[in-house]
């Protein structure tokens, strides 16, 4: 019998482990028959640890660490306070790295597999959101190692879901999209399936978008209705409100309305319509990713044979509706939203172990890889959606005579300016002393099948390759920026605040006043007479306030004008959106 490799879905809110048995992927359950393990960890002061259901039971009473996945491989500055400056999380048992906490969950999954399979398990395939960058992938791999696992592959989640979907359809040739909306992350991939080869054409996503955001939005909405501010709550209270937000969200997938209820504080009735309003910005971000993925794959909705939806949040009706609208077809809900990814991970494990034959996966790197050039621009070496493993070379020469080394910053992302992309780190290229332009070092960038980068430098004269270690970005750019902003704000504190407020409002007014005229001309026909006169009144009020140089009045009246023109703005945006997404030729 060949060795066992397990497939693990390490999710934001829950995790699962699966294995291929007689060619079919099976989820493995714990002693109580539960195959989904909540991604929750609790520590006591003296080092006691509880994981999963046992940990979750203590939530709201004690500090339980959930959604750690949203912090893994991140820098403190990106974490909105979730991480200490050194990248650790404060727990009852001291400071811990996110990967150390995730390792506790992986260890439990490993034990479940060992109990079920009655054998020691060492090797595993771990899944990550497709849109995870190098640092997040590397940290996830480390979490596996800390749990005593040899991670034989880091697999993208939507790709895993596609494997699960396609295993029964190996003889078909088709293009499909996978839409994966989980607890904390969102991915969308377009794949081509042909004769057992699953080839990813494009992938897009947002690693900060998922069900957790919707829970928080509902909690914030309810707090607002009760005259409270979610931002000012204590940590425990916040957890309670957000988990009630989650309950309401789930209820709204079944019912038209649900009551948000916090004992001794109050109740708020939340309708689907109100929820839709809260979801709008999130739905727009999802749509943007979906359009990007289709554009990159050069397909339209009609070219796709199926839109496979997975992830817990794909149960939300308005998400399904939006998907149907974007892809111009009803989504395929045949895959279990919480289990498909673990099954897919098990299939990839089976491919690597040799138990699943005649299936091959060709995945891509989600983000472009490049280096910073003079002038702070990003020079792309490997563009996004390149099949992995892949490599690219770049030649460096000395710019002045006798130059000993040069620093190369490695970046990941799609923005033109180097500073807008994620900095992987930097390394030094060492030169032999030589005349200007004569010392040459070739550097090869390799992205392996896990989507993780390694760098090799080749001395052109001796043809010797050396592995270059990439120092993580030691100076956190973001933090330096924050510091600068703080010191600036201290200097400006003594300025006349009134002048600033007036100036800001005036700028906004100068934009709004002419815009009102143009907008009414374009779309006034869609408004009622009452709406129009409301807008006119608000406009006149602003004009008077500017004339009279009244600071407080200008601020209030500009805000009023901004509010009353909201539906007018929405109509114009909708018209523009319709125009850009209509396919002209067909």
């Amino acid at each position, binding site marked *: 019998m060949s060795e066992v490799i397990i497939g693990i879905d390490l999710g934001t809110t829950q995790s699962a482990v699966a294995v291929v048995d007689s060619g079919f992927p099976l989820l493995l359950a714990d002693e109580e028959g539960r195959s989904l393990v909540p991604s929750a960890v609790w520590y006591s002061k003296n080092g006691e640890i509880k994981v999963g259901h046992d940990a979750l039971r203590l939530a709201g009473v004690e500090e339980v660490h959930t959604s750690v996945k949203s912090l893994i491989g991140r820098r403190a500055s990106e974490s909105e306070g979730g991480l200490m400056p050194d990248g650790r999380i404060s727990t009852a048992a001291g400071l811990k790295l996110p990967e150390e906490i995730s390792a506790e969950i992986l260890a439990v999954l490993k034990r479940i597999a060992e109990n079920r399979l009655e054998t020691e398990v060492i090797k595993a395939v771990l899944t990550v959101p497709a849109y995870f960058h190098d640092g997040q992938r590397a940290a996830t791999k480390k979490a596996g190692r800390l749990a005593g696992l040899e991670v034989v592959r880091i697999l993208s989640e939507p790709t895993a879901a596609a494997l699960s979907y396609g295993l029964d359809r190996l003889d078909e040739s088709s293009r499909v999209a996978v839409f994966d909306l989980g607890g904390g992350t969102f991915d969308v991939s377009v794949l081509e399936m042909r004769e057992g080869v699953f080839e990813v054409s494009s992938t897009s996503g947002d690693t900060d978008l998922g069900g957790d955001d919707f829970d928080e939005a509902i909690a914030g909405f309810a707090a607002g209705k009760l005259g409270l501010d979610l931002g000012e709550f204590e940590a425990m209270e916040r957890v309670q409100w957000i988990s009630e937000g989650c309950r309401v969200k789930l209820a709204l997938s079944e019912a038209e309305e649900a009551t948000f209820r916090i004992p001794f504080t109050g109740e708020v009735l939340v309708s689907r319509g109100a929820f839709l309003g809260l979801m709008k910005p999130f739905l727009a971000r999802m749509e943007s990713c979906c359009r990007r993925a289709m554009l990159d794959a050069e397909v339209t909705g009609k070219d796709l044979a199926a839109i496979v939806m997975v992830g817990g949040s794909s149960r939300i009706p308005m998400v399904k509706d939006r998907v149907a609208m974007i892809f111009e077809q009803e989504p395929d809900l045949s895959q279990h939203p919480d289990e498909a990814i673990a099954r897919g991970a098990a299939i990839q494990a089976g491919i690597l172990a040799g138990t699943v034959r005649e299936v091959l996966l060709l995945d891509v790197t989600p983000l472009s890889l490049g280096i910073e050039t003079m002038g702070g621009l990003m020079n792309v070496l490997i563009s996004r959606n390149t099949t992995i493993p892949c490599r690219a070379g770049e030649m460096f020469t000395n710019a002045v005579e006798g130059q000993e080394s040069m620093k190369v910053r490695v970046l990941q992302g799609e923005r033109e300016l180097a500073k807008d992309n994620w900095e992987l780190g930097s390394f030094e290229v060492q030169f032999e002393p030589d005349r200007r332009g004569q010392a040459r070092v070739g550097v090869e960038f390799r992205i392996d099948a896990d989507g993780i980068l390694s760098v090799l430098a080749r001395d052109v004269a001796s043809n010797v390759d050396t592995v270059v270690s990439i120092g993580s970005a030691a100076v956190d750019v973001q933090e330096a920026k924050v510091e600068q902003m703080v010191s600036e704000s201290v200097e400006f504190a003594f300025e006349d605040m009134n002048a600033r407020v007036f100036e800001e409002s005036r700028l906004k007014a100068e934009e709004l006043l002419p815009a009102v005229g143009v907008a009414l001309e374009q779309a006034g026909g869609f408004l009622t007479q009452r709406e129009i006169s409301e807008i006119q009144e608000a406009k006149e009020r602003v004009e008077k306030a500017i004339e009279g140089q009244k600071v407080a009045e200008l601020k209030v009246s500009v805000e009023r004008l901004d509010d009353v023109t909201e539906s007018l703005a929405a109509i114009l945006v909708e018209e523009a959106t319709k*125009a850009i997404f209509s396919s002209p030729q067909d």
Partner: protein
Amino acid sequence: MTDPFALIGVPRKLDLKDADIDRCLLVASQLHHPDLGGDQDLFLKIRLAGEILNSPAKRIRAAIECEGLAFDERGRIPAKVMEYFSLVASVLQDVDSFVSERSKALSSLGKAVLDIRVPGLKGDLELVSNKLNQLNSAMIASFKSFDEKGWAECEVEMSEVARGLIFLTKWSGQLREANGKLFESLLGG
């Protein structure tokens, strides 16, 4: 360089069907993927060969190199291609200034009023894209005659077509990116 035609097993021709290249690339990828016991270095070479052959601009460039012919990057560019340069540049600039203005707008109505320009920009992008595509197809149509005459006989013409295609490919990519930026700015709220 390694001959990309030989690597994935397509005939040594410029006039190839996309589907045929895809088919050969798929078979070669299956045969040499490290997950199925293949050699990683060879797999990387095969993928690179696939990338070259799938792009007409890179394919003709590779043909010139494989045949040992001269290629001057700075040589003459087909007049038609030059003509389109200002068209491409102006529409790209329009999109860029729209995106930047929109990101600076302070109010939703301010943004919305700018959005009135979107259908026009989209139309311009499509118009220029279509023109480029037509020219692209016309230039690819010459591949067949190069095959028939023999590559060695068409050194000058092939170089000129290659240079033209390199520009067209680059511009098409930029237009696609501009299209993406346009809708991202719109959906970005």
